[in-house]
């Protein structure tokens, strides 16, 4: 799982965060270090699609939060991913049984 879009949405799923916090969070939960260019590329795309929005702040380190549409998209992606994980796990177990 290295799609920066999903990783950023997953990071914002539990509350608003600014760039550095998102980067650190992703590094902790996915063991992936997003480069600053990659992170802000993802943030730009997500904001354009209306899946995240900037929270009210005067700080340069502007926090972002996930929108309803973003949450919906993330849930769809996770359902699809879960399906893949379940299928792959089942098949691996079957293969080990043979």
């Amino acid at each position, binding site marked *: 799982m290295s799609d920066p879009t999903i990783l950023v949405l997953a990071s914002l799923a539990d509350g608003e965060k600014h*760039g*550095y916090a998102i980067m650190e969070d992703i590094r902790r939960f996915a063991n992936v270090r997003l*480069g*600053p*260019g*990659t992170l*802000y590329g993802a943030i*730009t795309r997500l904001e354009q699609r209306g899946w995240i929005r900037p929270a009210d702040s005067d700080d*340069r380190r502007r926090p972002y939060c996930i929108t309803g549409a973003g949450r919906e998209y993330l849930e769809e992606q996770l359902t699809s991913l879960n399906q893949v994980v379940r299928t792959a796990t089942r098949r691996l177990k079957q293969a080990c049984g043979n």
Partner: protein
Amino acid sequence: MRQLIRWAVRLYPTLWRDRYGGELNALLEDIQLKWQDLFNILLGALRMQMATWHSLRIVAALGLAGALLAGVIAWRTQEVYVSTAVIGFAPAVQADGDRQAALRRITQAMHEVMSGRSLGEMITRPTLDLYPEDRKRMPLEDVVESMRRAGKIVSVSGPGGIAWKISWSYPDKFKAQSVVRELVARLIEQSVPAQRNQGPSAAMLFQVLDPASLPRQPLIPNRTFIVTVGLFGGAVFGWLAVLVRRIFSA
């Protein structure tokens, strides 16, 4: 490196920087920077530029980049010049029998002139000094083979019914001309002595119809062609990039 990365951030589109530049700079102050971050920022800037550019601008920019790249390749490619000469029957050769005999002799002479001994002598002759770099790294037999591949003797139609076009290619146009001149001289020389003992009718069998030319333009690289291909190749690549951008932004 921090300064370099800050400079790289300026490569993002102005509108993008107005919106996200402050945040990105704040992030860069917070993290421990690595070299890969510089490339990451550069790639991000390129992507963002591509995303904001008008389609025609992308096609034009990549077309220009393709032309520039092709130009560098074209100018770094070694030039190859081709010198040619044409020899035919001398007007004195009239009888069919004489022509048949002459044809046989020139065929033999061609083999003789293009033999390893003959070409090897030309390659190592100090006044010609051909393929000096190749001779340092490969045996003479291989250099002779290269020279043989660079030369061509073909029959063409001439005033006496048939003529022979001798051509040879080399990076030095003066040497190309000298070698063709030498090949022509040898071809005639090799044909005539064999027949001198057989009667006075063909004292001179051949004449030079076109002397060895001094090529003005190299045969390769055709720089105009290469740059044109680069331009169109780049433009096609740009057009594909525009398509990909449309697919991903849909």
